């Protein structure tokens, strides 16, 4: 059984939404924060609260990659190996960490006295390509990594030293991170900068050269957009939108 306080918080999440089933994704994040993974008990409890079957909850829990059925370590370390990061060095970083930690993909280091555990996984694009190669620790950015810097990060984590995101806060544990994803803030929002250097490059150049957006009295031609849905769909980027809009119009008639 999950602790009563957890059950109350799960109910609280469900109550944020006009229809309570909408709470399922954050509820499963909360289950992970308490149980270290999605457990059968967690699935049962969510199902009871949402008045759906455990099979329906299971179906959701197995669809999304952030939900884990095996216990996750104290820290989750992800290395982006989608094309851009892989090419820039992510493949080497991932290979080095597998070797250094002696684990395969989606595996956790063995328990060792005085050592924190790490679950290693390769990731798809994590929306930080201008900082490639990218590594994530508990879904915090560790930008511009090298094999050596990545080894230092995991060694520090294993030794229990404080590690700080290159563009964010001090790293919490994976379970604490999951709790934030469930919608319970942890007070670390004001840590870290507004933006990393790469994010600011265009802004800095504009400032140096005196480039700005036009003044408020700038005037361009308006009303250039198509007047029909079909016309808009034809100009939009997907042939699919066009086909579907035509289908809708046919259905409307």
């Amino acid at each position, binding site marked *: 059984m999950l602790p009563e306080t957890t059950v109350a918080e799960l109910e609280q999440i469900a109550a944020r939404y006009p229809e309570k089933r909408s709470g399922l994704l954050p509820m499963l994040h909360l289950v992970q924060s308490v149980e270290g993974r999605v457990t059968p008990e967690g699935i049962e409890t969510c199902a009871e609260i949402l008045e759906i079957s455990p099979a329906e909850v299971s179906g959701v829990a197995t669809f*999304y990659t952030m939900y884990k059925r095996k216990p996750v370590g104290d820290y989750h370390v992800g290395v982006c*190996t989608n094309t851009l990061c892989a090419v820039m060095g992510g493949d080497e970083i991932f290979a080095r960490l597998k070797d250094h930690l002696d684990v395969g993909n989606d595996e956790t280091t063995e328990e060792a006295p005085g050592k924190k555990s790490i679950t290693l996984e390769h990731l798809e694009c994590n929306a930080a390509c201008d900082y490639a190669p990218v590594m994530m620790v508990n879904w915090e950015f560790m930008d511009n990594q090298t094999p050596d810097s990545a080894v230092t990060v995991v060694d520090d984590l294993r030794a229990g030293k404080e590690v700080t995101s290159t563009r964010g806060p001090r790293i919490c544990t994976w379970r604490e991170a999951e709790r934030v*994803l469930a919608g319970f803030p942890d007070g670390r929002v*004001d840590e870290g900068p507004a*933006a990393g250097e790469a994010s600011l490059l265009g802004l800095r150049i504009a400032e140096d050269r005196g480039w700005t957006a036009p003044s408020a009295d700038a005037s*361009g031609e308006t009303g250039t*957009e198509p007047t029909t849905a079909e016309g808009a769909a034809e100009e939009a980027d997907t042939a699919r939108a066009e086909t579907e809009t035509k289908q809708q119009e046919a259905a409307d008639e």
Partner: protein
Amino acid sequence: MSDVNTLTPVLTKDWGTDRSWTLPVYESRGGYASLKKALTMAQDDIIAAVKDSGLRGRGGAGFPTGMKWSFIPQDNPKPKYLVVNADESEPGTCKDTPLMMASPHVLVEGVIISSFAIRANTAFIYIRGEILHVIRRVQAAVAEAYAAGHLGKNIHGSGYDLDVVVHAGAGAYICGEETALLEGLEGRRGQPRLRPPFPAVAGLYASPTVINNVESIASVPSIIEHGAEWFSSMGTEKSKGYGIFSLSGHVTRPGQYEAPLGITLRELIDLSGGMREGHRLKFWTPGGSSTPLLTDEHLDLPLDFEGMAGAGTMLGTRAIQLFDETTCVVRAVLRWTEFYKHESCGKCTPCREGTWWLVQTLAAIERGEGSEADLDLLLDQCENILGRSFCALGDGATSPISSSIQYFRDEYVAHLTHGGCPLDPAASTVWGSSLTRSGA
């Protein structure tokens, strides 16, 4: 081009400001003035302003935002919903993430104005779960907005009520597809819905729903503040306004560059200090991995919807990934293809089975196995996926393959004659270049 404002920071203008993510700093820089102005406007006038501005969706497809709003049937008695697609996952795309980290309030302000315009009393911001600090910043911005009376009941005495829920996803590229996102938001597996009905008529909870990208919604306050004419003074004839261009890969200074639509890649590469020293551009994506590849022949095309369509590709999310001559295009495309296979939701056969076959065929070629006829087999597989799958994921999976065969057929053949990849992957890494990159 000395007098021209090549870059036009609007969304990015506060990113360098200390504590830019907080309400006091945002308001000290003029934030929430557009909301107050909007609340005095007729709702249909807000929709008209966004329509007139020419703002087209910034999430990839480029559908006119104001027109999308006008599809909401106001005579439908069900509640209306606004859903912000902050599931930024298209490979190469990294603009909404820094925007929400540095300036979450411009998104929240846009959400309030947009919800007011479409008469929604509940809005959702669906953020991918893998960007924890971004979620913290948006959660805090929403809480601050409630405390300041920008959200909640009777906002600033207008009689208008709005609640905003920040919703964390759980790892699924497909949830960037708007109907799959709605499934996720309803607590289900993220599998796309058949259309029609469209979300504007039957979206979240089968109610009228507008789904817009973060950058689209964040552009709304500036349109309300300065007017549709101001917005449309930037950009090109049919691609109005500004947008964030994200440069990544083998350029000297990868980063975010906010410019009017229609800027060229040559200008952007110049601003970023050129390709890394001693190397030249080989291929690039204009808007993520689902947009067909281009080469160094395409440096002077306008980066707008029409310019990219004219070159057989798409503007997409302006996620410009640049690769130099050290990069093996077959390796790059195989990795993207493995991604599409992994992320295929499994609902429809062409995508589920097709992406699996694409990986098998490509991986064999990459190992140097097979014959040149396998390239035609690949293209045939692409033909059987493109336009036959349930959503655009399947279409996207074919883009890198067919475009790379078009421009780099010889390199595919070289794998077959060489018995594997003729290039050294170490040379394309950040540390593999003989010269250190200055921005790293």
